[in-house]
């Protein structure tokens, strides 16, 4: 087994194991920590596929921002240490049943499909390609700008709500 395959299996175990922890642990801070590990594993898979830019952005946004935001929210709202929360309710058996059915369905489809493999090489410098795809001529400029304006509006909205009425 070459190092590429080996890394892939290690990363897969890391992703699946941590993801399982996220949905099964009873302490919400532990869940957040394992969520960070899941994201890092996904970043590793991106890096294996030569999508370095995507890998770095995955770490920067999901690990460095979203997980921190979750931790922040948890710590600001309540005293959580030592409190165990149940992640399941009385519908758990039904949920397991539907999840297993879905898994079987996906497995059958995946096994019966022949996936086309491309002989093309991966893009050497993906950052430049992404940059010109977003901002270059005849590209996704408009969707990109719309997303930016949407985010800006969300930011302004958040500030307005946070300020309240007194000022």
């Amino acid at each position, binding site marked *: 087994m*070459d*190092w590429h395959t080996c890394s892939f299996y290690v990363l897969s175990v890391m992703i699946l194991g941590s993801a399982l922890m996220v949905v099964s642990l009873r*302490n919400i*801070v*532990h869940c957040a*920590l394992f969520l*960070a590990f899941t994201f*890092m594993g996904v970043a590793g898979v991106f890096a294996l596929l030569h999508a*370095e*830019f995507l*890998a*770095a*952005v995955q*770490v*920067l946004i999901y*690990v*460095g*921002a979203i*997980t*921190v935001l979750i*931790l*922040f929210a948890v*710590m*600001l709202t309540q005293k959580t*240490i*030592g409190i165990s929360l149940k992640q399941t309710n009385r519908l758990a058996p039904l949920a397991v049943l539907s999840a297993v059915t879905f898994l079987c369905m996906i497995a059958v489809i995946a096994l019966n499909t022949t996936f086309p493999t491309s002989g093309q090489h991966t893009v*050497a*410098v993906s*950052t430049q390609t992404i940059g010109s795809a977003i901002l270059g001529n005849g590209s996704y400029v408009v969707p990109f700008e719309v997303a930016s304006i949407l985010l800006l509006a969300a930011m302004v909205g958040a500030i307005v709500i946070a300020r309240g009425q007194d000022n």
Partner: protein
Amino acid sequence: MTLTGIAEFIASFFGLPGSSSVWIVAVLAAAILLGFMLLTVLILIYVLRKLLGKIQARLGPTRTGPKGIFQTAADALKLLIKEDTIPVKADRRVFIVAPILVFVPAYLVYVVVPFGEGNHFIAKDLNIGLLYIVAVSSINVIGVVLAGWASENKYSLLGGMRSAAQLISYEVPQALAVLGPVMLAESLSMQDIVKAQGEGLFSWFIFRSLPLLGFIVFLVASMAEINHVPFDLPEGESELVAGFNVEYSGMRFAFFMLAEFAASFTICAIAATLFLGGWHSPIRGFLDNGWWTVFWFFLKSSALVCLLMWIRATYPRVRVDQLMEFGWKLMIPLALFNVLVVGLYVALGKGG
């Protein structure tokens, strides 16, 4: 002899398959970087104590070894031997993981620091080098917050929260300031950025387009990122005892200290790479190859390290509200302005 050569030698010596040399190279590079990092921290702590002593008209350490040079080593040994306590009410597992989450990112950044010319003096010249640095160093916020939380101590929790707020606020101007050199070099790779500054002193990015602004914004934001004085609020002794690491002792505490000092060297190294021409000599073509490039790199980084220590000795700590106002109302607009001007400079330079 290159690292690959050594790895192939080791592989053949132990009768390992040829494909394993990839792993051996990785392990060797990691070990060298770790050794280098520990050595830098030892030296940095000693120099800091001596320099602070000089500035404050004291002597600094004098007793352990000639001029006290073994003081840091002695302190490190003391930290190793000290009892490792975990508070009864603490969340044990998170308490143990947190220092590692702070230490590992500080260590990972060394992978892309270009110590000299060519591929021998950089562990891996990633084509997203700079983005990698920004991404990896954003992980340590989690470690700091969790350390503060897991200690189950009000002071450490407050310290952790302050730190998180500070770190995520100053990441913005830092990342924006970094964009200047990226636009001028048209690359994210650290070696490419250095190569774009090879024409002597006035081709350094600190003097190109908008002089000094990008450099100052980057340095100040980075100082806030590593909790350096005057932005060391998370560990404000007078208000928070020692901040997020109050409950830590022995080796676990040493990890936080290691990460902090290692980071203060890295930001100087990165600032030197991005704005001061990296390993290039200040005069074009003068002693600008081979091991001389390592000399120039360390000269520039050390000068910045001393500047940081000077600031540490001189400035009083800012207040929380001042910190946030300074970050959001001054640093970010300045950084945005810098991006705008450098972008115009590059666009006009290309057009004309």
